């Protein structure tokens, strides 16, 4: 599904943020991406959702070498990815409903289907009553739930979430992690960038650990950690 091979990345002429990143994520896998602040988690996520292209190395996504794919076709890959941004990145002029409906409208789904699916999902994340409100009038936690709903509404094959539970109380946080688990069981590959050791321990998925722009991959079963490979 995703294969990084000796990928390096820098912003314009700046220093290399990510160096020699090599790892492979199988379809249907579930990983946590963790590491200290400034380690390059957001940059690595950005490479995965094609917000940037690697400055060196090769990146394969959904059986395509991204480096060789024409720019005009990258949207086809992006349509298979759901993203929860750390700062939510909602459209402040659109209602909660329209924000969540956006990926479906981009995919040109029928309006009736959009109405049913979005209403159902908003009810599920506890925002059914607030569907006509604009994001600036909602709390941080509510905005985060809209961001999550927008990311999963089109049933993406890959879900990337940057600190998705950062602004949520534990109850809703665990409930959403449960939703991610459910999506994963249905075949969605999931990568969650988080600092939350409690959640990582509790759910026990393998970890991708970034430090100083280099990646270490660990596999975890519950609270037991087993370092299997250091690819840096």
């Amino acid at each position, binding site marked *: 599904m995703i294969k990084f091979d000796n990928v390096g990345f820098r912003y314009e002429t700046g220093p290399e943020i990510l160096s020699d990143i090599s790892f492979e994520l199988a379809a249907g896998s579930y990983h946590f991406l963790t590491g200290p602040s400034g380690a390059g988690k957001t940059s690595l996520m950005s490479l995965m*959702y094609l917000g940037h*292209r690697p400055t060196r190395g090769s990146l394969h996504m959904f059986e395509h070498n991204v480096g060789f794919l024409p*720019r*005009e076709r990258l949207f086809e890959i*992006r349509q298979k990815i759901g993203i929860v941004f750390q700062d939510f990145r909602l*459209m402040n002029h*659109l209602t909660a409903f*329209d924000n969540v409906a956006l990926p479906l409208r*981009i995919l040109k789904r029928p309006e009736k289907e959009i109405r049913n699916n979005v209403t159902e999902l908003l009810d599920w994340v506890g925002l059914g009553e607030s569907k006509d409100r604009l994001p600036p009038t909602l709390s941080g936690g509510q905005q985060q739930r809209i961001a999550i709903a927008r990311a999963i509404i089109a049933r993406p094959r890959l879900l990337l979430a940057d600190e998705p539970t950062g602004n949520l109380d534990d109850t809703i946080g665990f409930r959403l992690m449960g939703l991610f688990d459910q999506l994963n069981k249905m075949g969605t590959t999931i990568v969650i960038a988080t600092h939350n050791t409690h959640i990582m321990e509790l759910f026990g998925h393998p970890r991708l650990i970034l430090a100083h722009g280099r990646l270490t991959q660990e596999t975890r079963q519950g609270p037991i950690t087993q370092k299997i490979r250091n690819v840096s």
Partner: protein
Amino acid sequence: MSVKRPPFYVKAQEILLRTVLGSKGYDLPFGSDADRGYLLLLVGLMSFLAVLACAGTLSLHAMTQRWSSGLENKITIEIKAEDRDGTMLSPETIRLETEKITEMLQKNPAVKSFEALQEKEIKKLVSPWLGEDFSLEDIPLPGLIAVELNVSSPEALEKLTGSIKKLSPTARVDTHREWLQDILRFTGTLQWIALFVALIVALTTVTAISSGVKSRMAVHKDQVEILHLIGASDKYIARQFQWHAIIIALLGSILGTAAGLGMATFILLLSGQSGTSLIPQISLDSTSMLIFIFLPVIASIISGVTARFTVLRTLSLMP
């Protein structure tokens, strides 16, 4: 506290956008754009100028057509009032020569019709310069015959001129071509100027739309980036800017065209009332109306294409 109502064009634009782009209209916050009114005004003014340029071109075209067709196959024979030595001829001599020529014209198969101008008519022609109270005895005037030919071929004209010269060696055949060509050259230049103005108007519109779209993209950079990252194709994003530009241009151009037509009608009415017979009254025939009806459509297409290409070019710089 009273709620400020949006201007009529904002409401019209939203209805049109919803019609074109679906139930929600558009994903980008164009509704909050402060430059929307300016763009509408700019396109309106450009359309206004374009209508005046088009009306000018059509008017000149009608004028040249009328002059050309009016003078087609027509010549004027002038029996000069003096002989080759510069001696003035008596009105009687001129009358006799005129009669000889008219007799010849009557028998000539190349001639469709002719009319020898009577003393009264010639007097009327020269009265602006000489006044009403003069006698042909005092000032000898040339004899004038207006002739309409069946065919105005150079051969027929040459043959006829030969026959006239035999009867009156000093007679001159005027085909009006000389002065008509000067006038046609002049009106042709004016038509080119009008077309040039129309071109400048189109280029100004393209430049204004392009820079408007660029600034709108800069203002909505974050929203464009979100759409881009959640899977919108460049065409999807361009479509929103494109339709926004098309609808603003359509509304602006309809207003500008209506105002321009009003102004053009007013100017032409004034020129008609001035009594200047040189300027024919322009009538909006079906072709002219079609041009004016299509002007907002053309303005919309120019705006839409410009917006689309500007957005696609800007988006191509994104990863």
